[in-house]
């Protein structure tokens, strides 16, 4: 009975592995526990051991190819054992036509001792291995995936028809997340239609995409220098993961920075006392800091939490990531420079991090004094709006009231406001946004495309190039603002029109 060798899980976060190097070739004897191949995971290059003894009969995934966990990458068996059934299995996801030869070829390779596979067969097997990779297998039947697909899941060039690209932009669909059903994986109209239907994402203010025309009015875009010429260099799984995680870490985690000075004399004493207990025990200051941070996180669960879109998740364990400097860490600078050319606040402040201007959380619980009584106010989908009379302690807000943001959407303006005295009537709360009204207005035809034809450059964490999204007029957000303003809950101070957003 031949044994399949599958892509193993070599790190807790590994989703796919790249075959770095085969340490055995077809026909070589292998025994259990012997190193078989080197696998490039998202963390490091790891050695993979054989889990069966016999002869390495067939290499299915070749060096440099990436496959998801669990996919068959090779077959180990007796030298004369029939492996055609297993080869069929490897080719199961493959187009119908060539698979008939596959068994034949496989059988031939098996009788003539499995030295090195003939090139055609190798290519077929490569195709077989790849075709299991894209999510929608049936789509690969008619056309082999484009050369770049599968190998570089993130760096791949998106192939999309002009119509589909426009429909995706209108519907706010990220093309990176899609598999195309056209030749070479081209994303075509029907793919967008089914994505829209699946996600029930009806394109705002655009019930029938075929009616949409480009705005004819001159588009008022801020001065953005033309994109720089570039070259792409392929990276290892590890570098890709570092880059992805770094970008992600800036995103969903709200950042703010506090500084304080700490006398470390006691820590130094503690460290030398440890050395006296056991000279082999190497404890660095860094280790001590990590331990202290871990203790603090457990002690202050409010800090050991993350925002989950609709909830805040509190962790019971303190997981701390430590960045270790390797050559690849240069990527931090690369990420920063990429943004610098695109996002205005980076150009205005030549230092990092950014400075916080307004922060208005819209899900909060505070103990507050209202009319002399202490009450707990839970604002869910509402922002706190303290007028000047309640901000007496603050040098500025005590005069003007607390600032808060009335966000529109990526496609409309937002308003920077200050709270008015009328907010007392709403338990000092204001709307946290106008998104629903904006959508309703668009859906009911009360609002349409931005009359100046402005667009938002929508950046995605996983994507260097932005997509362009047509903006809407401000009727929806203005309506929301009007209600708040009439009751003096807020007073608008500045209108913010997005030209680039990071989603």
């Amino acid at each position, binding site marked *: 009975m031949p044994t399949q060798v599958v892509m193993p899980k070599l790190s807790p976060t590994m989703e796919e592995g790249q075959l770095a190097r085969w340490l055995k070739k077809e026909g070589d004897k292998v025994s259990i526990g012997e190193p078989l191949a080197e696998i490039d995971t998202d963390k490091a290059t790891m050695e993979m051991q054989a889990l069966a003894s016999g002869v390495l009969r067939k290499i299915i995934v070749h060096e440099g190819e990436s496959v998801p966990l669990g996919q068959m990458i090779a077959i180990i068996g007796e030298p004369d054992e029939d492996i055609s059934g297993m080869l069929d299995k490897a080719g199961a996801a493959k187009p119908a036509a060539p698979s008939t030869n596959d068994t034949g070829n496989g059988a031939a390779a098996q009788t003539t001792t499995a030295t090195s596979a003939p090139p055609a067969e190798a290519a077929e097997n490569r195709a077989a291995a790849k075709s299991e990779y894209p999510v929608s297998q049936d789509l690969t039947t*008619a056309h082999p995936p484009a050369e770049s697909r599968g190998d570089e899941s993130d760096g791949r060039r998106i192939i999309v*028809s*002009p*119509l*589909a690209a*426009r429909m995706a932009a209108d519907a706010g669909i990220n093309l990176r997340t899609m598999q195309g*059903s*056209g*030749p070479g994986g081209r994303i*075509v*109209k*029907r793919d967008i239609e089914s994505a829209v239907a699946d996600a029930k994402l009806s394109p705002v203010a655009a019930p029938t995409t*075929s009616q949409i025309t*480009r705005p004819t009015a001159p588009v008022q875009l801020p001065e953005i220098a033309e994109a720089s010429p570039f070259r792409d260099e392929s990276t290892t799984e590890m570098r890709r993961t570092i880059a992805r995680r770094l970008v992600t870490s800036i995103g969903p985690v709200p950042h703010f920075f506090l500084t304080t000075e700490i006398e470390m004399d006691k820590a130094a004493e503690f460290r030398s006392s440890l050395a006296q207990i056991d000279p082999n025990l190497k404890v660095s200051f860094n280790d001590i800091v990590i331990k202290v941070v871990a203790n603090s996180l457990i002690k202050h669960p409010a800090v050991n939490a993350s925002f989950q879109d609709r909830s805040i998740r509190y962790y019971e364990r303190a997981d701390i990531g430590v960045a270790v400097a390797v050559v690849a860490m240069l990527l931090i600078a690369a990420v920063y420079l990429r943004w610098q050319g695109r996002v205005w606040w980076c150009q205005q402040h030549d230092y990092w991090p950014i400075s916080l201007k307004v922060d208005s959380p819209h899900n909060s619980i505070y103990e507050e004094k209202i009319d002399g009584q202490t009450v707990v106010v839970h604002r869910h989908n509402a922002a706190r709006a303290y007028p000047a009379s309640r901000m007496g302690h603050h040098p500025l807000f005590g005069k003007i009231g607390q600032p808060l943001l009335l966000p529109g959407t990526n496609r409309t303006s937002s308003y920077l406001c200050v709270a008015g005295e009328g907010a007392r009537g709403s338990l000092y709360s204001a709307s946290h946004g106008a998104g629903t009204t904006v959508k309703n207005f668009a859906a009911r035809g009360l609002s349409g495309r931005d009359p100046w034809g402005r667009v938002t450059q929508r950046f995605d964490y996983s994507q260097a190039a932005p997509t362009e999204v047509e903006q809407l007029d401000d009727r929806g957000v203005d309506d929301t603002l009007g209600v708040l303003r009439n009751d003096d809950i807020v007073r608008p101070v500045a209108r913010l029109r997005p030209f680039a957003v990071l989603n």
Partner: protein
Amino acid sequence: MAVITMREALNQALKEELSRDKNVFLMGEEVAAYQGAYKVTKGLLEEFGDKRVIDTPITELGFAGLGVGAAMAGLRPVVEFMTFNFSILATDQIINSAAKMLYMSGGQFNIPIVFRGPNGSAFQVSSQHSQALESWFAYFPGLKVVMPSTPADAKGLLKSAIRDDDPVIFLEQERMYGNKGEVSDDPEFLIPLGVADVKREGKDATIVARSLMVPYALKAAEELEKQGVSVEVIDPRTIRPLDIETIIKSVKKTNRVVVAEESHPFCGVGAEITAQISVQAFDYLDAPVKRLSGEDVPMPYAKNLENLAIPDVKRIIDAVREVAYLD
């Protein structure tokens, strides 16, 4: 309305215009006594006499020049080329005189002339007699180029061509002279030049076809309908001026296009249509425009090879399925 052949429809158009305007006259090889190589001028010599229906010597350059001169002098000649393959000899008069005269005379001389005859492949007449020359004439500013695909279009367009004050190249198709269709007998039945016709409405793909390819495209559309594909068939009818708006409108609706033509692909009319679509409807395309042209070889004589050299119904169906991503 009566059901007649395209040959009869053309004959009616000539007859009606000869009766309507005494300045209209016909000339060409065998148009009078023999009543036309394809009998398009049947009965006209008898009815209008030898001053209005004139047999010429076998000298295309000569009688084309004669026609241009007559047009400058105020007559409205209709010059028949036995086939348009022979017009190649007359191209100096057509291109250098007829097409340029209005411009070079500063607007003093209109050239109201029609050059007509069969264009494209026939039945096994080989390389020199099977050529589709529309892109030649459409290339030059100053010429109008018309290609009817139905008897009604043939009649209405030929009458408009004769009444037009500019030189018109009127391209018929030998394989289509016997095609039948309903034709109005109203002497004022005119189809304006420069207006495309939607021969069939559909929503999944557009076939832009002209002349011989129109009936093929319609048959393909019928077959595709059974396969659940709704195809729109646009016949531009006039190549110059081209009614690109109608084509673009259709592309914006269907997002996929096949341009079918009998002529060679390189620098062909299909190439021009494709280019204009890519400029004017780029954002509406869901697939690259598919051009289905005659093969890029001289027309073979052998019947089986001749059939392979020009698009047929099956290849049109395959092309539509390709742009609609069905295969």
